[in-house]
């Protein structure tokens, strides 16, 4: 098969009927999700709206203004009308600075009287104007990013994606530069362990994270500035990515868009399964965050690779594929073109087993073949990594080979110390040097190989696809919440009303107002 970027990968014969059916079923699932998403909003979505409207900063004690505002509205049961509406209300009452606005919100009654129609229209108009201006500024920032990318060009595929996770933004800068100089194309700054469960986005430059660095708008800015500089020096555009995930999914999407990030980890189910975040909450948040990504041309990276860190990679291979179809369906409905849907998968089959390469190749080629336009992200082994760094390195190199053979778009490079600690500077260097060698050495091989008709690769891919279809039949029939409730994904079961953050979900009022959604949803 010829990929849009000009590379050839081995052909994989699949039953087009089954493929079509999967897409149709996933579409149905996505429609169901969307129907429920469109009835609701969340504290995080409303905070994101306020951020878009210019409230980026935090008050004393580091509490973001948007939290202070939204909490007041939420406490009074007023959020169903949309924070933007209330902001308009405040503005028209002469409250412009955050403190005044918060004060004004704190004084609102639980059921404020309706406005006269003219005032209502004027208020909406005013906020819409503000929103258009903000959207224009955002568009300008994104265009700036795209111009630099166009000017410098990017490296050939797969893009080498390297993790930086010192916990200290200044060390991150140093390590990100070093990684770029050693050949990285994408720098992912991992965020601190506990952040996904925080219902606010920390503020400012930070130096004390655990297992990662706090995702803050200022940290994004600092890293992007360093990478802009480094891109110019190296003559190659360097991508920056972070996590739009957890309880502040959409706010981080905003911050990332504003600070010109290129990609975001953003999955429909990750938070539900792995952070025990309430599913209604996350499904709403992901939709709005994806709308922002679509507007800002940000590639999303979905998290199916995680399923096979808890479930068995051989047995659960089909759940990855089924989830891809669902993530694709949801992404399309959030306005993301396929070229921004970086579905995630990984090389995770237990290396103690036999013939793992046949199955890894089948799986990676299946994903590639099913989603030819998507900038697929391939993850290295993690679960079965051990402390023997020499073996671990060899194992990573095998993932490099499969990535190259199957035409992946973005490859997260494995770290020989995966089972030990966050990557050291030298771990990244070692990974990059070997990946470069593999890419060079196997350059044209993917175009030389045909897999035997009816052979093990083809049979495995067919079987996984078939099982994915069966799972999708179940999900489409019973709904996504029911399927998650049965532990169908990642062997983790969650209930629709369990988990963190449900209290932050709000039914939209009939007069819900969100001027950004209007802009983002405009074709």
């Amino acid at each position, binding site marked *: 098969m010829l990929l849009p970027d000009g590379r050839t990968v081995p052909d994989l014969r699949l039953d087009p009927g089954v493929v079509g059916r999967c897409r149709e079923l996933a579409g149905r699932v996505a429609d169901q999700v969307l129907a429920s998403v469109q009835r609701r909003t969340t504290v995080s979505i409303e905070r994101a709206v306020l951020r878009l409207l210019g409230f980026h900063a935090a008050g004393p004690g580091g509490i973001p203004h948007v939290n202070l505002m939204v909490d007041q509205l939420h406490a009074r049961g007023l959020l169903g009308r949309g924070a933007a509406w209330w902001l308009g209300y405040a503005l028209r009452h002469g409250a412009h600075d955050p403190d005044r606005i918060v004060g004004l919100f704190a004084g609102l009654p639980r059921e404020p009287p309706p406005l006269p129609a003219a005032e209502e229209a004027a208020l909406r108009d005013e906020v819409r104007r503000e929103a258009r201006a903000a959207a224009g500024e955002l568009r300008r920032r994104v265009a700036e990013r795209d111009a630099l990318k166009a000017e410098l060009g990017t490296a050939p595929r797969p893009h080498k994606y390297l993790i930086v996770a010192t916990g200290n933004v200044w060390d991150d800068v140093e390590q990100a*530069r*070093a990684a770029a100089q*050693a050949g990285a194309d994408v720098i992912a700054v991992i965020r601190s*362990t506990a952040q996904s469960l925080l219902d606010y986005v920390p503020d400012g430059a930070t130096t004390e994270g*655990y297992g990662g660095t706090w995702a803050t708008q200022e940290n994004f800015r600092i890293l992007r500035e360093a990478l802009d500089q480094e891109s110019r020096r190296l003559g190659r555009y360097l991508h920056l990515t972070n996590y739009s995930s957890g309880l502040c999914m959409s706010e981080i999407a905003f911050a990332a868009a504003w600070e010109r990030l290129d990609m975001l980890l953003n999955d429909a189910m990750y938070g539900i399964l792995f952070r025990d975040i309430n599913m209604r909450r996350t499904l709403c948040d992901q939709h709005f965050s994806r709308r922002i990504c679509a507007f800002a041309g940000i590639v999303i990276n979905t998290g199916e690779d995680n399923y096979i860190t808890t479930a068995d990679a051989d047995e659960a291979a089909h759940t990855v594929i089924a989830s891809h179809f669902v993530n694709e369906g949801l992404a399309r409905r959030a306005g993301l073109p396929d070229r921004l849907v970086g579905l995630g998968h990984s090389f995770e089959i237990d290396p103690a087993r036999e013939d793992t390469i046949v199955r890894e190749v089948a799986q990676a080629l299946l994903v590639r073949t099913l989603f030819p336009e998507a900038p697929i992200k391939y993850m290295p082994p993690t679960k079965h990594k051990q*402390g023997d760094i020499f073996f671990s390195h060899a194992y990573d190199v095998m993932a490099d080979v499969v990535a190259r053979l199957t035409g992946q778009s973005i490859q997260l490079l494995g770290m020989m110390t995966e089972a*030990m600690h966050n990557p050291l*500077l*030298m771990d990244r260097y070692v990974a990059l040097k070997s990946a470069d060698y593999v890419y060079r050495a196997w350059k044209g091989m993917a175009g030389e190989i045909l897999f035997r008709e009816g052979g093990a690769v083809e049979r495995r891919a067919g079987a996984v696809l078939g099982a994915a279809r069966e799972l999708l039949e179940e999900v489409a029939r019973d709904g996504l919440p029911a399927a998650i409730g049965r532990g169908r994904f990642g062997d983790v079961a969650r209930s629709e009303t369990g988990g963190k953050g449900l209290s932050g979900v709000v039914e939209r009022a009939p007069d819900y107002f969100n001027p950004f959604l209007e802009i983002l949803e405009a074709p």
Partner: protein
Amino acid sequence: MTDPVLVRPYGDRRDDGVVQLSFVLPLPAGERARAAAAEVARQLGLSGVQLAAMEPAAEGYTFFVLYGRTAAAVDAAALEVPEVAAHRHGFDELNEIARREVGRRIVVLGACTGSDAHAVGIDAIMNMKGYAGDYGLERYPVFEAVNLGAQVENAALARACVERRADAVLVSQVVTQRDVHRENARQLIDELERLGARGRVIAVLGGPRIDHRLALELGYDAGFGAGTRPSEVAGWIVGEVLRRMGKSLH
């Protein structure tokens, strides 16, 4: 082992003391960096140092690989080695002994605590399906095993121990960056002490970077590391319960 046994690293010939080393220095590659790396090796007490690689890992950073000989020698017999007493019993046998000798179900709570969300390790020990072909604690009739999952707060876990009259609490800690696991682990012990329950609960710590020595240091009764099998933990808990009853598991 009681005879003194002096061991040294072995590369090519017995007792040659050969070790391999790698690190990064914040210097550009070159003769000065080479000399600096050799000096680091000297400060580590290595002799016969061979620089295998000096590579520019980034601007101003050089990656080194080197080999050298250490004079380090260890009397292995003289080392004090705190070991988790291993009881080797089959599944049925252990259940039978515990039924007979303890005479009631042993209540075990498990959790991955604090900000740590890595549930796979504690699941491997606790869950029905078990790990590496070994049944998990939930499968043992003799245990009343409850897995509380990940990101469980220490205060809540300590309260649960009291409320459910837990015989043992199993704590998993996987994230260790900047010693966050130490803090998390100690916190539970503090909470148990605050509730006056520390003495009543057997506290077990586990995780890939945990060992028995560290667990003792953090105030636990035992520690289990990478690759632990559920049956080892089951055997140890039964043994410890019996010991506290003044009996012993053979």
